[in-house]
């Protein structure tokens, strides 16, 4: 198929800009018309056209449960490994989020202050939070803010209401869970010794930059 003949959706550029940064397009995202972009990608015709279009750039659109992302074809294992390293920080975060009284799951809405409050009231959570290496470490609230900001930057969360500082967990968060679940740690975990099983069907998306 000739690219000129594809009649690409007019949001193609926007889609590329998001996905090429290693971000996700989630169905429950509302900022910057993300749900609209998801709808466009969900349309089988659009999907096919965009897939063909991006394949020229050696990108492959991966369709997962309610979210899309890019994977690179023929990526060298060293890069995959590097990508995996970036997951190290997420493991502790996901662990922390999963240990809260009300677990953070897809669609959950929370304010960093709520989580910080819970962490300061719970020794176990406090320890988990302290384990996460962060730049700003003055207090729990700032730490959680930093975590939320980082996840939002990576399009796993969305700052839904700036006034109330309410974050929403996007569908892409399940990508984190799936990848972390697929990681098998051998022995006592030295910082970077983790790998994914060879038969894993998870395509690593995180940009190692």
């Amino acid at each position, binding site marked *: 198929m000739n690219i000129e003949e594809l009649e690409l959706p007019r949001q193609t550029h926007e889609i590329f800009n998001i996905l090429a940064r290693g971000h996700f397009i989630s*169905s*429950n995202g*509302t900022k910057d018309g993300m*749900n609209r972009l998801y709808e466009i990608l969900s349309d089988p015709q659009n999907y096919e056209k965009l897939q063909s279009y991006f394949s020229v750039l050696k990108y492959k659109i991966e369709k997962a449960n*309610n979210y899309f992302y890019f994977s690179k074809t023929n990526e060298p294992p060293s890069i995959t490994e590097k990508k995996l390293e970036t997951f190290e920080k997420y493991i502790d975060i996901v662990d922390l989020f999963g240990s809260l*009284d*009300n*677990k*953070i*799951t*897809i*669609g*959950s*809405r*929370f*304010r960093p202050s*709520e*989580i910080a409050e*819970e962490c300061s009231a719970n020794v176990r959570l406090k320890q988990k939070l302290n384990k996460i290496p962060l730049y700003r470490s003055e207090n729990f609230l700032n730490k959680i803010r930093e975590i939320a900001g980082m996840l939002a930057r990576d399009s796993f969360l969305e700052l*839904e*209401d700036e006034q109330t500082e*309410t974050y*929403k*967990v*996007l569908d892409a968060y399940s990508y984190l869970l799936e990848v972390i679940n697929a990681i098998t740690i051998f022995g006592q975990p030295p910082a970077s010794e983790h790998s994914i099983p060879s038969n894993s069907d998870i395509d690593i998306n995180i940009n190692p930059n």
Partner: protein
Amino acid sequence: MSNHRILNRIVLINIANVKYTDIELNGNTCFVGANNYGKTSLQRAILFFYSANSRSLGISSSQKPFEEHYFRFDNSYILYEVTTETSPFFIMVYRHNKLVFRFVDSEYSPDFFFNENNEALKFREVLANLDKKNIFYSNQIDTFEKYRNILYGTETDLKLNKFFLLRGNEKYQNIPKSITNVFLSSKNSIDSRFIKDFIASAISNDSDAIILEKIERQLRQFSEKYQDIESFLKKETQQLIEFAEHKYDQVQILKNSQIEAAEKLGATLKYADTQHNILLNTLQEKEKHLQQIKEDYEALRYSIEERQKDLREQIGFYDGMIREAQRKLEIYKEKDIDTLLNKYQEKQKLESQLQVLQKEYETLTSDVQNIEVQYQSLLNNIQNEIHSVTNKINAQITEIINHYNELILLQKEEQAKRESTLKQQLQTTLFSINNEVHQKQIELGQFKSEEKISSNIQPYEKEIKQLELEITEIKTKIYTSKSELAIQQNQVETLQKEWQNIEKQLQQKFELASQSIQSKIEQLKKEILLIDKKLNIQENALYGFLEKNIPNWHLTFGKILDENILFKNDLNPQLMSSSNNTIFGIQIDLNQLQIVSKSIEQYQTEKIQKLNEIKNLENQFLQEQQKLQNEKLLNADKYGKQIAEIKEDIKVILYAIELAEKKEKKRLIELEEWKSKAAKETDTSLQFIREKIVIIEEELAILKKRKQITETENETQIQNTIAKSQQQIQHLKQQQQQEIEQLEVQRKNTIKELKEKEEKLLAEKQNIFQNKGVDNKKISEIQKQISSIQQQLQEINQYQNIISDYLKDKRDLFDNIPIYKQKKEEYITENKNILQQLEEETKKYKLTISEIQKQRKEIEDTLSQFNQGIFFFQNNLKETPVYKHYAPIIENAEPKPSNYNITDLCTQLLKNESYFNEEYTQFQRYINEFAGKFRLDNHFGFFIKHDASFNDYEKFAQNLRNFINENRIEVSITETSALATMIIDSVAIKIKELSGQKDKIQHIVSLLAEDFKKAEFEESKLIEYIKIRIEESDNKIYKLLKKIQEFRDEHGIFFNDGLFNTNNEAPKKTLSLQIIRMLDQLRSAIQEQEQQEIKLQDLFELKFNIKEGLNETGWTHRIDSIGSTGTDILVKAIIYITLLHVFIKESSVKTNKKFKVHCIIDEVGQISAHYLKELLRFAKSRNIVMINGLPNKSGLESHYKYTYQFKKEEDSSVRVFPSIITEVEV
């Protein structure tokens, strides 16, 4: 009297800072005065005459309102005098709470308003003055609208319809608007946009504008609602709802089961607590009772055994007596006691016979008595000796007999003793065996009865019966629920059908109404077209000719003319000499005819009426539409709610059925468990009993055999001893016989010797007697008889002892045998009875004991179970979060016995809690994911906080369920569709309304263009031409609105079922998507453009091309500068005048009554005299009189007919006075 109508003068009495002024306006007028002297205020007062709108006079909001600034006193008046073809009239404006008007049919005179002291009168006094002078004045006109209607000649009231300035048509409002706009815009630069605004505002109202903020708000609402609904309708969302609902049910079931278990646990714990002491006491009581029963039984047994012993002794005694009697009887029988007794009975007879014989003998021997005595003595001696020998031997025999008898007796006694011992032994053995047998038989009976009881009495019968009852109840409940479900489902179907029918009916009704309205509108439009056609052609038709040339033709000639003839334009009417109201020379009585022709005003009115009718019909259509929507919403609300309620009930019923079925299943399993447990227990207990029975029966058989053997052995032993004893007795008897025989032989020999001796003596005696003559024969016979009797007596005496013994025995023993037997029988019976009693008592005792022991065991089991349970609870549950979770339920439960034990309940709680937590986590996950699909402030209220509790999640799920059951999404869709329809309709209607006026704009612009062409600029050569043209609007928002309107016109209303049609193939879906996209674009455009409203001026672009001297602007929107400022003012003024002229022309009816209006342009000071002259001439040629303001005298004022100067007095009042200047004729 004037040849035209015009505002002739304005008189201000106590208005603002002016105490009194009278200004003539019947020609170009100029006000000269410095700033803030009241020039503009005066111009506003003039403008008010035309606009009668105190709010569009250009008074800023920071200034006092017109009413308050101008009319400060009760006697403040503005008076407008209007000249007419006949006599002038004036209008008085004063404040009576609000501004009011009165038309006075008279020329203005100060006398009406002032008293002799030159003080202004109050309005009542003024009216009184007018009354005095018999001058007609109108009622108080208190609305601006009515005032304008009168002034612009559209008033139908005959009393007032003469007070007009001009005859306006339905667009007459454009005249005051235009005059106002000129006044208000005169300071602005020339911009086509301004002209556009001018034209647009002249022909449209503020209310015609489309307020974008409102549309944007509506669009935002729609977009948000649409987004919410779309999110809801998505397949994934629906799937999530299904999952969440399913999980919710599971969580609910688990929660209920946990609560139930917690309640049971609480109840059982409390029960165990309350029962502990009770059970211990009961146990002690049972123990005591058991002891008591044992003691009672032992006592009874002891007494019975003691009695038994007595009875046995008695039986033995009587038995011994009977045996003794029988033995003696046997002995006596052997001695032939009967014969002996018979002989003994003859003893006395024999003794009497002996006495008789002895007396006879004595008598016979009395003679030989001595001899007799002698011999007798010898014989007696021999006899005695015989007796003695006999006795001696008898004694010896008796002794031997006695001795042997004794020996035999001893032997027999010994034998009896042995026999008795053996029998005793046998009896003891038999008694023990019998006892054992008896015992076993009791046991057997007991086990048999237990077997019977066990086979008849089902274990756990209570539980099984309770479960069976519960299952029956559940089944009944399921059955009832299912029938109820069927009824409810039928009801839902019926309601849905009813709803659909009503919807159909409503739609049909609406379509009918809509068709009827549309056809009416079409009809009216046609009629309006006809009227328009007539009005457009009337000038060149016979009608126009008649209007111009024949006064009151409607009353004469018009009566016989057909309307078609009147509007024919090819009739070439010519005014010939009057022929006294004849028609081709024929005169008819016209009074008999009705006036059929209509005046222009009537046509205008008719047209206005029809337009109003169309408006009304359109409103009616909208109302119908709204009504339809409302009714649909009402129906959706009514039926939706009903259906939702029923559906909720159905859900509840379904849930109840599901629960009941689950419960039934559970109960059935429990029942089966109980039954199998019972069967197992029955089997176990029966097996045990049966085994026991078999063992006992075997034991009984052994005992019987043992008894038999013992009896046989005993019998043999007895027989052996008897035989041995018999032998010994026989031997003793033989010895006895031998000894007796020896003695008998001895006796026989001795007696024989003695007998021989006796015979010798007797022979000697007889010889002596014979010798003495005694009858020896006789004596010998007697002696023989005596001897025989004596022998017999001797023999009888021999048996004397036996007989006496016998008689004694008979008296003591034999006669008592029946009594002994009876006694023995009685004792045996009694013994039997007490044995039976003992047996029964033993049986009873054993049963009671076993029952109590069973009860005790049960209590002990229960107690141990309670203790174990409490221990388990304390160690395994009390400290867990599960307990904390259910603590209130457990702690507040009422003590109640239950089939479950505490350990089981604790285990169930712990086990289920982890399952519950798993399910709850999943449930939470689904709810979070579902809520996350929606906006934070979605209109469904689907929002869950991070720190939401279980109750919050539960509430969320319940709300979601209610939402689905009540089909609120349908209501939301209907509302959203209605909102979309409303937005689109309102956009379409407004755009249509505005677009409808576009034609007018086109018309006006073409008129303007024409008027510009007509302008005689050539004379001064100052302005070569002013060209104007209209172009398509490039307003993005308008374009989108237009697109929406076109779409609406093309496709009509389709949202009711198409907005969220899930069928992507449906053509309506594509249309929906198109329109939704358009609405979306519109919203974005509104947000981007930041435009407040879409007015008529946004519908088109206006461009000018002005050539002044050598300068040509080219086609442009804005003309910044054509030449000098003066030129700019001139061009602007020319354009304004043209506009005013065109609008007046367009908005008034052409009649034979001429009029002039004023064009008020302030600040024309910078215009050159030459240009001013040109301008005034330009205005004059268009029947427009100029009113201008000048800051100071500069010579320009000389071009005006009237010039007024303004001066501030010391008391800060303003005096307006005419300047004496000769007008230079324009």
